[in-house]
Protein backbone atom coordinates (compact mmCIF):
# COMPACT_ATOMS: atom_id res chain seq x y z
CA UNK A 1 0.00 0.00 0.00
CA UNK A 2 1.43 3.37 -1.06
CA UNK A 3 0.24 6.61 0.56
CA UNK A 4 1.28 10.19 -0.04
CA UNK A 5 -0.95 11.82 2.58
CA UNK A 6 1.45 11.40 5.48
CA UNK A 7 -0.80 8.99 7.36
CA UNK A 8 0.74 5.60 6.60
CA UNK A 9 3.55 3.73 8.36
CA UNK A 10 5.23 1.67 5.65
CA UNK A 11 8.63 0.12 5.12
CA UNK A 12 9.71 3.40 3.57
CA UNK A 13 8.44 6.33 5.57
CA UNK A 14 9.05 9.87 4.25
CA UNK A 15 7.84 12.98 6.05
CA UNK A 16 8.09 16.63 5.01
CA UNK A 17 10.96 16.02 2.61
CA UNK A 18 12.48 19.16 1.19
CA UNK A 19 15.39 19.53 -1.19
CA UNK A 20 16.76 22.85 -2.33
CA UNK A 21 19.71 23.61 -4.57
CA UNK A 22 21.56 26.86 -4.78
CA UNK A 23 22.51 27.85 -8.30
CA UNK A 24 24.31 31.17 -8.05
CA UNK A 25 21.95 33.52 -6.31
CA UNK A 26 18.94 31.45 -7.34
CA UNK A 27 17.44 28.87 -4.98
CA UNK A 28 15.83 25.93 -6.70
CA UNK A 29 13.20 24.09 -4.67
CA UNK A 30 13.29 20.55 -6.11
CA UNK A 31 11.14 18.75 -3.53
CA UNK A 32 8.65 20.45 -1.26
CA UNK A 33 7.28 18.90 1.91
CA UNK A 34 6.94 15.48 0.36
CA UNK A 35 5.25 12.63 2.27
CA UNK A 36 5.41 9.02 1.16
CA UNK A 37 4.78 5.57 2.63
CA UNK A 38 5.71 2.44 0.76
CA UNK A 39 5.07 -1.05 2.12
CA UNK A 40 7.31 -4.05 1.65
CA UNK A 41 6.86 -5.81 -1.73
CA UNK A 42 5.35 -2.69 -3.30
CA UNK A 43 6.28 -1.77 -6.84
CA UNK A 44 6.06 1.99 -7.23
CA UNK A 45 6.78 4.01 -10.34
CA UNK A 46 7.52 7.72 -10.19
CA UNK A 47 6.76 9.69 -13.32
CA UNK A 48 6.97 13.32 -14.17
CA UNK A 49 8.59 15.81 -16.49
CA UNK A 50 12.32 16.42 -16.51
CA UNK A 51 13.38 18.45 -13.50
CA UNK A 52 10.37 17.41 -11.46
CA UNK A 53 12.60 15.86 -8.79
CA UNK A 54 12.19 12.13 -9.53
CA UNK A 55 15.87 11.25 -9.53
CA UNK A 56 16.50 13.56 -6.57
CA UNK A 57 13.84 11.68 -4.61
CA UNK A 58 15.43 8.37 -5.54
CA UNK A 59 18.87 9.62 -4.52
CA UNK A 60 17.53 10.78 -1.17
CA UNK A 61 15.77 7.44 -0.58
CA UNK A 62 19.01 5.66 -1.44
CA UNK A 63 21.06 7.73 0.97
CA UNK A 64 23.41 9.12 -1.66
CA UNK A 65 22.09 12.65 -1.22
CA UNK A 66 20.95 14.57 1.84
CA UNK A 67 17.64 16.44 2.18
CA UNK A 68 17.38 20.09 3.12
CA UNK A 69 14.60 19.21 5.57
CA UNK A 70 12.35 16.31 6.51
CA UNK A 71 13.02 12.71 7.39
CA UNK A 72 13.37 9.35 5.66
CA UNK A 73 12.96 6.15 7.65
CA UNK A 74 13.53 2.75 6.09
CA UNK A 75 12.68 -0.37 8.07
CA UNK A 76 12.86 1.65 11.28
CA UNK A 77 16.24 3.25 10.48
CA UNK A 78 16.11 7.02 10.12
CA UNK A 79 18.72 7.68 7.50
CA UNK A 80 18.55 11.46 7.29
CA UNK A 81 20.66 11.94 10.39
CA UNK A 82 23.12 9.13 9.90
CA UNK A 83 26.85 9.89 9.65
CA UNK A 84 28.43 9.41 6.22
CA UNK A 85 30.11 6.16 7.24
CA UNK A 86 26.93 4.74 8.79
CA UNK A 87 25.00 5.73 5.71
CA UNK A 88 27.54 3.93 3.51
CA UNK A 89 27.17 0.78 5.59
CA UNK A 90 23.40 1.16 5.53
CA UNK A 91 23.39 1.42 1.73
CA UNK A 92 25.45 -1.74 1.45
CA UNK A 93 22.89 -3.63 3.50
CA UNK A 94 19.58 -2.13 2.39
CA UNK A 95 19.78 -0.59 -1.09
CA UNK A 96 20.13 -2.09 -4.54
CA UNK A 97 20.73 0.53 -7.23
CA UNK A 98 19.83 -0.01 -10.88
CA UNK A 99 21.03 2.77 -13.18
CA UNK A 100 19.97 3.92 -16.63
CA UNK A 101 23.53 3.59 -17.98
CA UNK A 102 24.01 0.22 -16.19
CA UNK A 103 27.25 1.53 -14.67
CA UNK A 104 29.03 -1.78 -14.79
CA UNK A 105 32.78 -1.74 -14.31
CA UNK A 106 34.14 -2.49 -17.80
CA UNK A 107 37.31 -4.25 -16.68
CA UNK A 108 35.41 -6.75 -14.54
CA UNK A 109 33.46 -9.75 -15.80
CA UNK A 110 29.72 -10.08 -15.22
CA UNK A 111 30.50 -12.36 -12.30
CA UNK A 112 32.96 -9.89 -10.75
CA UNK A 113 30.55 -6.98 -11.23
CA UNK A 114 27.77 -8.86 -9.48
CA UNK A 115 30.14 -9.96 -6.74
CA UNK A 116 31.09 -6.36 -5.84
CA UNK A 117 28.46 -5.77 -3.09
CA UNK A 118 29.30 -9.14 -1.56
CA UNK A 119 32.94 -8.13 -1.11
CA UNK A 120 31.68 -5.92 1.69
CA UNK A 121 30.22 -8.89 3.54
CA UNK A 122 31.93 -11.60 5.55
CA UNK A 123 30.86 -14.32 3.13
CA UNK A 124 33.49 -16.84 2.09
CA UNK A 125 34.62 -17.07 -1.52
CA UNK A 126 32.49 -20.18 -2.06
CA UNK A 127 29.44 -18.51 -0.51
CA UNK A 128 29.94 -15.43 -2.65
CA UNK A 129 30.17 -17.62 -5.73
CA UNK A 130 26.91 -19.34 -4.83
CA UNK A 131 25.11 -16.02 -4.31
CA UNK A 132 26.44 -14.57 -7.57
CA UNK A 133 25.45 -17.68 -9.54
CA UNK A 134 21.96 -17.50 -8.03
CA UNK A 135 21.57 -13.80 -8.90
CA UNK A 136 22.84 -14.30 -12.45
CA UNK A 137 20.54 -17.32 -12.73
CA UNK A 138 17.52 -15.20 -11.73
CA UNK A 139 18.31 -12.65 -14.47
CA UNK A 140 18.93 -15.43 -16.99
CA UNK A 141 22.64 -14.83 -17.51
CA UNK A 142 24.18 -17.82 -15.76
CA UNK A 143 25.94 -18.72 -18.98
CA UNK A 144 27.47 -15.24 -19.40
CA UNK A 145 29.21 -14.83 -16.08
CA UNK A 146 32.69 -14.73 -17.59
CA UNK A 147 31.75 -12.15 -20.21
CA UNK A 148 32.90 -8.57 -19.93
CA UNK A 149 30.29 -5.80 -20.29
CA UNK A 150 31.57 -4.98 -23.80
CA UNK A 151 30.70 -8.54 -24.83
CA UNK A 152 27.06 -8.15 -23.74
CA UNK A 153 24.09 -6.38 -25.32
CA UNK A 154 22.51 -3.38 -23.59
CA UNK A 155 19.67 -5.51 -22.24
CA UNK A 156 22.10 -8.09 -20.92
CA UNK A 157 24.22 -5.39 -19.29
CA UNK A 158 21.16 -4.06 -17.52
CA UNK A 159 20.29 -7.56 -16.33
CA UNK A 160 23.80 -7.86 -14.90
CA UNK A 161 23.13 -4.51 -13.21
CA UNK A 162 19.93 -5.97 -11.73
CA UNK A 163 21.81 -9.06 -10.57
CA UNK A 164 24.32 -6.76 -8.86
CA UNK A 165 21.46 -4.90 -7.20
CA UNK A 166 19.76 -8.02 -5.82
CA UNK A 167 22.77 -10.19 -4.97
CA UNK A 168 23.10 -8.91 -1.40
CA UNK A 169 19.32 -9.26 -0.86
CA UNK A 170 18.70 -5.56 -0.09
CA UNK A 171 15.58 -4.16 1.54
CA UNK A 172 14.56 -2.34 -1.61
CA UNK A 173 15.60 -1.68 -5.19
CA UNK A 174 15.93 1.84 -6.56
CA UNK A 175 15.75 1.93 -10.34
CA UNK A 176 16.58 5.17 -12.13
CA UNK A 177 15.30 4.94 -15.71
CA UNK A 178 16.41 1.31 -16.05
CA UNK A 179 14.92 1.03 -19.56
CA UNK A 180 15.90 4.51 -20.71
CA UNK A 181 18.80 3.28 -22.81
CA UNK A 182 17.19 0.12 -24.17
CA UNK A 183 15.12 -0.84 -27.21
CA UNK A 184 11.51 -1.86 -26.63
CA UNK A 185 12.16 -5.60 -26.55
CA UNK A 186 15.05 -5.33 -24.09
CA UNK A 187 13.08 -2.83 -22.02
CA UNK A 188 10.18 -5.28 -21.80
CA UNK A 189 12.54 -8.03 -20.70
CA UNK A 190 13.96 -5.82 -17.96
CA UNK A 191 10.48 -4.82 -16.79
CA UNK A 192 9.40 -8.48 -16.84
CA UNK A 193 12.34 -9.21 -14.62
CA UNK A 194 11.54 -6.42 -12.16
CA UNK A 195 7.90 -7.55 -12.01
CA UNK A 196 9.04 -11.09 -11.33
CA UNK A 197 11.32 -9.89 -8.53
CA UNK A 198 8.31 -8.28 -6.85
CA UNK A 199 5.91 -11.14 -7.53
CA UNK A 200 8.13 -14.14 -6.85
CA UNK A 201 10.88 -12.76 -4.63
CA UNK A 202 8.80 -10.14 -2.79
CA UNK A 203 11.22 -7.33 -3.51
CA UNK A 204 10.24 -3.72 -2.94
CA UNK A 205 10.94 -1.74 -6.10
CA UNK A 206 10.91 2.04 -6.53
CA UNK A 207 11.21 3.00 -10.18
CA UNK A 208 11.76 6.34 -11.84
CA UNK A 209 10.79 6.38 -15.50
CA UNK A 210 9.67 8.53 -18.38
CA UNK A 211 8.31 5.48 -20.15
CA UNK A 212 4.55 5.00 -19.61
CA UNK A 213 4.79 1.40 -20.85
CA UNK A 214 7.36 0.64 -18.18
CA UNK A 215 5.36 2.48 -15.54
CA UNK A 216 2.32 0.35 -16.37
CA UNK A 217 4.10 -2.63 -14.82
CA UNK A 218 4.12 -0.97 -11.39
CA UNK A 219 1.36 -1.47 -8.82
CA UNK A 220 1.32 2.23 -8.10
CA UNK A 221 2.24 5.12 -10.33
CA UNK A 222 2.94 8.44 -8.60
CA UNK A 223 3.43 11.68 -10.45
CA UNK A 224 5.83 14.33 -9.37
CA UNK A 225 5.15 17.83 -10.44
CA UNK A 226 7.28 20.77 -9.35
CA UNK A 227 8.54 18.89 -6.32
CA UNK A 228 5.14 17.71 -5.13
CA UNK A 229 3.89 14.11 -5.25
CA UNK A 230 0.53 13.53 -6.83
CA UNK A 231 -1.07 10.15 -6.32
CA UNK A 232 -1.71 8.28 -9.53
CA UNK A 233 -3.28 4.92 -9.95
CA UNK A 234 -2.81 1.61 -8.17
CA UNK A 235 -3.11 -1.70 -9.99
CA UNK A 236 -2.25 -5.35 -9.39
CA UNK A 237 1.30 -6.04 -10.47
CA UNK A 238 1.52 -8.17 -13.61
Amino acid sequence: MVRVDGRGNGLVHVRGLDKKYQRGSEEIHVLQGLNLDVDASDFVAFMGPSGSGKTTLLNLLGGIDLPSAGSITVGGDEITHMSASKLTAWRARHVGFIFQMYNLIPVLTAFQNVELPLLLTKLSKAERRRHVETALGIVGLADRMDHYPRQLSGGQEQRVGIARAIVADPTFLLCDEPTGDLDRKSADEVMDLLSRLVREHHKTVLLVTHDPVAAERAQTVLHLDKGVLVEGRTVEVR
Partner: protein
Amino acid sequence: MKYRHLIFANLFRKKIRTTLTLGSFLVALFLFGLLAAVRGAFNQGVEVAGVNRLDVINKVSIIQPLPISYKEKLERIPGITLVTHENWFGGVYQDERNFFPQFAIQDETFRQMYPEFILSDDQWKAFAEDREGAIVGENTAERFHWKVGDRIPIKGTIFPGTWEFNICGIYKGSRPQDDTTQFWFHYKYLEERESAYWKGLIGWYIVRIDSPDNGARIAGAIDETFANSPWETKTETEQALAAGFAKQAGNIEFLLVSVGSVVFFTLLLVTGNTMAIAVRERMRELAVLKAVGFSDSFVLALVLGESLLLAAIGGGFGLLLCKLATPVLSKASGGLLPYLYLAPLTVASGLLVALMVGTAAGILPAWSAMRLRVVDALRRV
Protein backbone atom coordinates in the same frame (compact mmCIF):
# COMPACT_ATOMS: atom_id res chain seq x y z
CA MET B 1 43.06 -10.25 -0.54
CA LYS B 2 39.62 -10.28 -2.13
CA TYR B 3 40.08 -6.82 -3.69
CA ARG B 4 43.27 -7.78 -5.57
CA HIS B 5 41.47 -8.35 -8.88
CA LEU B 6 39.83 -4.94 -8.57
CA ILE B 7 43.20 -3.17 -8.25
CA PHE B 8 44.87 -5.19 -11.03
CA ALA B 9 41.91 -4.88 -13.40
CA ASN B 10 41.82 -1.10 -12.98
CA LEU B 11 45.56 -0.75 -13.30
CA PHE B 12 45.73 -2.56 -16.62
CA ARG B 13 42.60 -1.14 -18.25
CA LYS B 14 44.77 1.18 -20.37
CA LYS B 15 47.65 -1.11 -21.16
CA ILE B 16 49.74 1.32 -23.18
CA ARG B 17 49.45 4.06 -20.58
CA THR B 18 50.24 1.69 -17.75
CA THR B 19 53.17 0.20 -19.66
CA LEU B 20 54.62 3.65 -20.32
CA THR B 21 54.26 4.64 -16.68
CA LEU B 22 55.80 1.36 -15.60
CA GLY B 23 58.59 2.12 -18.07
CA SER B 24 59.16 5.50 -16.40
CA PHE B 25 59.54 3.82 -13.03
CA LEU B 26 61.74 1.15 -14.56
CA VAL B 27 64.11 3.68 -16.14
CA ALA B 28 64.18 5.88 -13.03
CA LEU B 29 64.93 3.02 -10.66
CA PHE B 30 67.45 1.53 -13.07
CA LEU B 31 69.23 4.87 -13.09
CA PHE B 32 68.94 5.16 -9.32
CA GLY B 33 70.45 1.70 -8.88
CA LEU B 34 73.20 2.40 -11.38
CA LEU B 35 74.18 5.74 -9.81
CA ALA B 36 74.19 4.16 -6.38
CA ALA B 37 76.33 1.30 -7.70
CA VAL B 38 78.77 3.76 -9.32
CA ARG B 39 78.93 5.68 -6.06
CA GLY B 40 79.51 2.40 -4.25
CA ALA B 41 82.26 1.45 -6.70
CA PHE B 42 84.04 4.75 -6.10
CA ASN B 43 83.58 4.46 -2.36
CA GLN B 44 84.26 0.75 -2.32
CA GLY B 45 87.59 1.27 -0.61
CA VAL B 46 85.88 3.26 2.12
CA GLU B 47 83.22 0.64 2.69
CA VAL B 48 85.59 -2.30 2.96
CA ALA B 49 88.32 -0.47 4.86
CA GLY B 50 89.30 -2.09 8.12
CA VAL B 51 88.40 -0.03 11.15
CA ASN B 52 91.44 -1.28 13.03
CA ARG B 53 94.00 -0.42 10.34
CA LEU B 54 95.94 2.80 9.86
CA ASP B 55 97.87 3.84 6.77
CA VAL B 56 101.18 5.58 7.26
CA ILE B 57 102.24 7.56 4.19
CA ASN B 58 104.91 10.11 3.41
CA LYS B 59 103.74 13.52 4.66
CA VAL B 60 104.56 15.11 1.29
CA SER B 61 102.53 12.69 -0.83
CA ILE B 62 101.61 9.06 -1.05
CA ILE B 63 103.84 8.76 -4.11
CA GLN B 64 106.88 9.68 -1.99
CA PRO B 65 108.49 6.63 -0.31
CA LEU B 66 109.28 5.91 3.33
CA PRO B 67 112.35 4.09 4.72
CA ILE B 68 111.95 0.41 5.49
CA SER B 69 113.78 1.09 8.75
CA TYR B 70 110.58 2.66 10.13
CA LYS B 71 109.05 -0.81 10.45
CA GLU B 72 110.84 -1.67 13.68
CA LYS B 73 110.11 1.75 15.17
CA LEU B 74 106.45 1.38 14.32
CA GLU B 75 106.29 -2.02 15.95
CA ARG B 76 107.50 -0.48 19.20
CA ILE B 77 104.73 2.12 19.40
CA PRO B 78 102.17 1.05 22.06
CA GLY B 79 98.86 -0.07 20.57
CA ILE B 80 100.32 -1.28 17.25
CA THR B 81 99.98 -5.04 16.90
CA LEU B 82 101.12 -5.65 13.34
CA VAL B 83 103.03 -3.76 10.64
CA THR B 84 103.27 -4.45 6.92
CA HIS B 85 104.10 -2.39 3.87
CA GLU B 86 103.15 -2.04 0.22
CA ASN B 87 104.49 -0.45 -2.94
CA TRP B 88 102.53 0.82 -5.87
CA PHE B 89 103.99 -0.73 -9.03
CA GLY B 90 101.91 0.88 -11.79
CA GLY B 91 102.72 -1.67 -14.53
CA VAL B 92 100.87 -2.26 -17.78
CA TYR B 93 99.72 -5.62 -19.05
CA GLN B 94 99.67 -5.69 -22.88
CA ASP B 95 97.76 -2.41 -23.21
CA GLU B 96 97.39 0.70 -21.05
CA ARG B 97 93.62 0.21 -21.02
CA ASN B 98 94.07 -3.06 -19.13
CA PHE B 99 94.33 -1.34 -15.79
CA PHE B 100 94.53 -3.25 -12.53
CA PRO B 101 96.43 -2.36 -9.34
CA GLN B 102 99.73 -4.10 -8.64
CA PHE B 103 101.45 -4.02 -5.27
CA ALA B 104 104.80 -5.21 -4.03
CA ILE B 105 104.04 -6.70 -0.61
CA GLN B 106 105.73 -8.19 2.41
CA ASP B 107 104.03 -11.55 2.09
CA GLU B 108 103.51 -13.03 5.59
CA THR B 109 102.57 -9.82 7.42
CA PHE B 110 100.41 -8.81 4.49
CA ARG B 111 98.48 -12.06 4.76
CA GLN B 112 97.88 -11.49 8.47
CA MET B 113 96.88 -7.90 7.87
CA TYR B 114 94.16 -8.73 5.34
CA PRO B 115 92.32 -11.83 6.52
CA GLU B 116 89.36 -10.86 4.32
CA PHE B 117 91.32 -12.06 1.28
CA ILE B 118 91.09 -15.83 1.03
CA LEU B 119 93.89 -17.95 -0.40
CA SER B 120 94.82 -21.57 0.34
CA ASP B 121 97.91 -22.34 2.40
CA ASP B 122 99.38 -24.28 -0.53
CA GLN B 123 99.16 -21.30 -2.81
CA TRP B 124 100.63 -18.98 -0.18
CA LYS B 125 103.48 -21.47 0.27
CA ALA B 126 104.09 -21.65 -3.49
CA PHE B 127 104.12 -17.86 -3.62
CA ALA B 128 106.56 -17.58 -0.70
CA GLU B 129 108.94 -19.99 -2.36
CA ASP B 130 108.98 -18.32 -5.78
CA ARG B 131 110.91 -15.04 -6.00
CA GLU B 132 108.99 -14.11 -9.18
CA GLY B 133 105.73 -15.41 -7.79
CA ALA B 134 102.51 -13.40 -7.83
CA ILE B 135 99.00 -13.68 -6.46
CA VAL B 136 96.12 -12.26 -8.37
CA GLY B 137 92.48 -11.58 -7.47
CA GLU B 138 89.85 -13.75 -9.10
CA ASN B 139 88.30 -10.79 -10.87
CA THR B 140 91.51 -9.92 -12.71
CA ALA B 141 92.35 -13.60 -13.29
CA GLU B 142 88.95 -14.10 -14.88
CA ARG B 143 89.28 -10.90 -16.90
CA PHE B 144 92.56 -11.97 -18.52
CA HIS B 145 91.87 -15.73 -18.38
CA TRP B 146 94.89 -16.29 -16.15
CA LYS B 147 95.37 -19.48 -14.20
CA VAL B 148 97.88 -20.76 -11.65
CA GLY B 149 101.15 -21.57 -13.40
CA ASP B 150 100.85 -18.89 -16.07
CA ARG B 151 103.81 -16.59 -16.63
CA ILE B 152 102.72 -12.99 -16.98
CA PRO B 153 104.83 -10.18 -18.46
CA ILE B 154 104.11 -6.72 -17.08
CA LYS B 155 105.76 -3.59 -18.42
CA GLY B 156 106.90 -1.23 -15.70
CA THR B 157 106.07 2.48 -15.93
CA ILE B 158 107.60 3.63 -12.64
CA PHE B 159 110.11 0.78 -12.52
CA PRO B 160 111.35 0.35 -16.11
CA GLY B 161 111.60 -2.82 -18.12
CA THR B 162 109.45 -5.88 -18.53
CA TRP B 163 108.78 -7.81 -15.35
CA GLU B 164 107.78 -11.43 -15.53
CA PHE B 165 105.72 -13.09 -12.83
CA ASN B 166 104.53 -16.62 -12.16
CA ILE B 167 100.94 -16.85 -11.00
CA CYS B 168 101.11 -18.91 -7.79
CA GLY B 169 97.62 -18.28 -6.45
CA ILE B 170 94.25 -16.68 -7.07
CA TYR B 171 92.58 -15.07 -4.07
CA LYS B 172 88.91 -14.44 -3.34
CA GLY B 173 87.19 -11.92 -1.13
CA SER B 174 85.22 -13.07 1.90
CA ARG B 175 82.56 -10.39 1.21
CA PRO B 176 80.97 -9.56 -2.14
CA GLN B 177 82.35 -6.02 -2.07
CA ASP B 178 85.96 -7.05 -1.40
CA ASP B 179 88.38 -5.93 -4.09
CA THR B 180 89.57 -8.93 -6.07
CA THR B 181 91.32 -7.00 -8.83
CA GLN B 182 94.68 -6.70 -7.11
CA PHE B 183 97.97 -8.23 -8.15
CA TRP B 184 100.59 -8.88 -5.45
CA PHE B 185 104.24 -9.80 -5.81
CA HIS B 186 107.27 -9.89 -3.51
CA TYR B 187 108.72 -6.63 -2.25
CA LYS B 188 112.07 -8.40 -2.22
CA TYR B 189 111.86 -8.93 -5.99
CA LEU B 190 111.28 -5.21 -6.51
CA GLU B 191 114.01 -4.21 -4.09
CA GLU B 192 116.57 -6.55 -5.66
CA ARG B 193 115.87 -5.46 -9.20
CA GLU B 194 115.61 -1.76 -8.38
CA SER B 195 118.33 -1.68 -5.73
CA ALA B 196 120.02 1.38 -7.14
CA TYR B 197 116.96 3.52 -6.82
CA TRP B 198 114.68 1.76 -4.37
CA LYS B 199 117.00 0.11 -1.85
CA GLY B 200 115.60 0.45 1.66
CA LEU B 201 112.44 2.21 0.57
CA ILE B 202 108.80 1.19 0.58
CA GLY B 203 105.60 2.92 -0.54
CA TRP B 204 103.61 3.10 2.67
CA TYR B 205 102.96 1.19 5.85
CA ILE B 206 99.78 -0.38 7.07
CA VAL B 207 99.55 -0.92 10.81
CA ARG B 208 96.98 -2.83 12.80
CA ILE B 209 95.98 -1.27 16.11
CA ASP B 210 94.61 -2.90 19.22
CA SER B 211 91.33 -0.93 19.20
CA PRO B 212 89.67 1.48 16.73
CA ASP B 213 89.04 3.75 19.73
CA ASN B 214 92.79 4.33 19.99
CA GLY B 215 93.15 5.25 16.31
CA ALA B 216 93.56 9.00 16.77
CA ARG B 217 96.02 8.62 19.64
CA ILE B 218 98.18 6.07 17.82
CA ALA B 219 98.15 8.05 14.56
CA GLY B 220 99.36 11.06 16.53
CA ALA B 221 102.08 9.00 18.20
CA ILE B 222 103.31 7.69 14.84
CA ASP B 223 103.54 11.11 13.24
CA GLU B 224 105.21 12.50 16.34
CA THR B 225 107.79 9.71 16.28
CA PHE B 226 108.90 10.67 12.78
CA ALA B 227 108.45 14.43 13.08
CA ASN B 228 111.41 16.57 12.03
CA SER B 229 112.98 13.64 10.18
CA PRO B 230 113.78 13.63 6.44
CA TRP B 231 110.80 11.31 5.99
CA GLU B 232 107.94 12.76 7.98
CA THR B 233 104.74 10.74 8.03
CA LYS B 234 101.05 11.35 7.76
CA THR B 235 98.92 8.69 9.41
CA GLU B 236 95.22 8.27 8.93
CA THR B 237 92.67 5.52 9.07
CA GLU B 238 92.38 3.27 6.06
CA GLN B 239 88.85 4.58 5.66
CA ALA B 240 89.96 8.23 5.56
CA LEU B 241 92.67 7.46 3.01
CA ALA B 242 90.20 5.59 0.77
CA ALA B 243 87.68 8.43 1.09
CA GLY B 244 90.38 10.86 -0.02
CA PHE B 245 90.99 8.78 -3.15
CA ALA B 246 87.27 8.60 -3.87
CA LYS B 247 86.95 12.37 -3.64
CA GLN B 248 89.59 12.78 -6.32
CA ALA B 249 87.12 11.28 -8.80
CA GLY B 250 84.69 14.16 -8.20
CA ASN B 251 81.68 14.71 -6.01
CA ILE B 252 79.83 11.51 -6.83
CA GLU B 253 77.45 12.08 -3.92
CA PHE B 254 76.33 15.42 -5.39
CA LEU B 255 75.96 13.88 -8.84
CA LEU B 256 73.85 11.09 -7.40
CA VAL B 257 71.58 13.40 -5.45
CA SER B 258 71.12 15.98 -8.21
CA VAL B 259 70.51 13.54 -11.08
CA GLY B 260 68.34 11.35 -8.83
CA SER B 261 66.26 14.31 -7.66
CA VAL B 262 65.55 15.49 -11.20
CA VAL B 263 64.64 11.99 -12.33
CA PHE B 264 62.31 11.35 -9.40
CA PHE B 265 60.66 14.75 -9.62
CA THR B 266 59.94 14.10 -13.32
CA LEU B 267 58.67 10.67 -12.42
CA LEU B 268 56.40 12.18 -9.79
CA LEU B 269 54.85 14.48 -12.40
CA VAL B 270 54.41 11.67 -14.93
CA THR B 271 52.84 9.27 -12.46
CA GLY B 272 50.74 11.95 -10.80
CA ASN B 273 49.36 12.91 -14.19
CA THR B 274 48.65 9.29 -15.07
CA MET B 275 46.82 8.67 -11.82
CA ALA B 276 44.85 11.91 -12.13
CA ILE B 277 43.69 10.92 -15.63
CA ALA B 278 42.93 7.38 -14.47
CA VAL B 279 40.71 8.68 -11.67
CA ARG B 280 39.01 11.34 -13.80
CA GLU B 281 38.08 8.71 -16.38
CA ARG B 282 36.37 6.53 -13.82
CA MET B 283 34.49 9.02 -11.67
CA ARG B 284 31.20 7.26 -12.41
CA GLU B 285 32.62 3.85 -11.55
CA LEU B 286 34.02 5.12 -8.28
CA ALA B 287 30.66 6.72 -7.56
CA VAL B 288 28.94 3.39 -8.23
CA LEU B 289 31.32 1.67 -5.82
CA LYS B 290 30.37 4.21 -3.18
CA ALA B 291 26.68 3.87 -4.01
CA VAL B 292 26.75 0.11 -3.47
CA GLY B 293 28.40 0.58 -0.08
CA PHE B 294 32.15 0.93 -0.48
CA SER B 295 33.44 3.51 1.96
CA ASP B 296 35.34 6.70 1.20
CA SER B 297 38.47 5.26 2.79
CA PHE B 298 38.17 2.13 0.64
CA VAL B 299 38.10 4.28 -2.51
CA LEU B 300 41.12 6.21 -1.24
CA ALA B 301 42.98 2.97 -0.58
CA LEU B 302 41.97 1.57 -3.98
CA VAL B 303 43.41 4.50 -5.93
CA LEU B 304 46.48 4.73 -3.72
CA GLY B 305 46.94 0.97 -3.99
CA GLU B 306 47.00 1.24 -7.79
CA SER B 307 49.63 3.95 -7.63
CA LEU B 308 51.75 1.98 -5.18
CA LEU B 309 51.44 -1.19 -7.22
CA LEU B 310 52.54 0.71 -10.31
CA ALA B 311 55.56 2.02 -8.38
CA ALA B 312 56.43 -1.37 -6.91
CA ILE B 313 56.20 -3.27 -10.21
CA GLY B 314 58.03 -0.63 -12.28
CA GLY B 315 60.61 0.05 -9.59
CA GLY B 316 61.13 -3.64 -8.90
CA PHE B 317 61.78 -4.40 -12.56
CA GLY B 318 64.10 -1.38 -12.82
CA LEU B 319 66.18 -2.59 -9.89
CA LEU B 320 66.15 -6.16 -11.19
CA LEU B 321 67.39 -4.94 -14.56
CA CYS B 322 70.08 -2.92 -12.80
CA LYS B 323 71.11 -5.99 -10.80
CA LEU B 324 71.51 -7.93 -14.04
CA ALA B 325 73.22 -5.08 -15.87
CA THR B 326 75.85 -4.10 -13.28
CA PRO B 327 78.16 -7.11 -13.81
CA VAL B 328 77.97 -6.58 -17.58
CA LEU B 329 78.69 -2.85 -17.25
CA SER B 330 81.46 -3.60 -14.80
CA LYS B 331 83.19 -5.81 -17.36
CA ALA B 332 82.59 -3.25 -20.08
CA SER B 333 84.27 -0.54 -17.97
CA GLY B 334 87.64 -2.19 -18.65
CA GLY B 335 88.62 -2.35 -15.00
CA LEU B 336 87.68 1.25 -14.21
CA LEU B 337 84.72 0.14 -12.08
CA PRO B 338 85.57 -3.39 -11.02
CA TYR B 339 82.96 -3.35 -8.27
CA LEU B 340 79.82 -2.07 -9.80
CA TYR B 341 77.67 -3.82 -7.26
CA LEU B 342 74.02 -3.28 -6.37
CA ALA B 343 73.96 -3.66 -2.61
CA PRO B 344 70.82 -5.02 -0.86
CA LEU B 345 70.54 -1.71 0.99
CA THR B 346 70.41 0.12 -2.36
CA VAL B 347 67.64 -2.20 -3.54
CA ALA B 348 65.68 -1.56 -0.34
CA SER B 349 66.26 2.21 -0.59
CA GLY B 350 65.23 2.18 -4.25
CA LEU B 351 62.01 0.37 -3.50
CA LEU B 352 61.32 2.75 -0.63
CA VAL B 353 61.89 5.77 -2.88
CA ALA B 354 59.67 4.23 -5.58
CA LEU B 355 56.89 3.66 -3.05
CA MET B 356 57.28 7.22 -1.75
CA VAL B 357 56.93 8.55 -5.31
CA GLY B 358 53.95 6.23 -5.80
CA THR B 359 52.34 7.58 -2.64
CA ALA B 360 53.05 11.21 -3.51
CA ALA B 361 51.74 10.72 -7.06
CA GLY B 362 48.62 8.88 -5.95
CA ILE B 363 47.61 10.84 -2.88
CA LEU B 364 45.94 13.79 -4.62
CA PRO B 365 43.90 11.73 -7.11
CA ALA B 366 43.05 9.32 -4.28
CA TRP B 367 41.97 12.19 -2.08
CA SER B 368 39.74 13.63 -4.80
CA ALA B 369 38.25 10.15 -5.36
CA MET B 370 37.59 9.88 -1.65
CA ARG B 371 35.87 13.27 -1.54
CA LEU B 372 33.80 12.49 -4.62
CA ARG B 373 30.06 13.04 -4.14
CA VAL B 374 28.14 10.11 -5.55
CA VAL B 375 25.27 12.24 -6.84
CA ASP B 376 27.56 14.66 -8.66
CA ALA B 377 29.58 11.90 -10.29
CA LEU B 378 26.51 9.94 -11.41
CA ARG B 379 25.06 13.09 -12.98
CA ARG B 380 28.10 13.41 -15.27
CA VAL B 381 27.67 11.83 -18.69
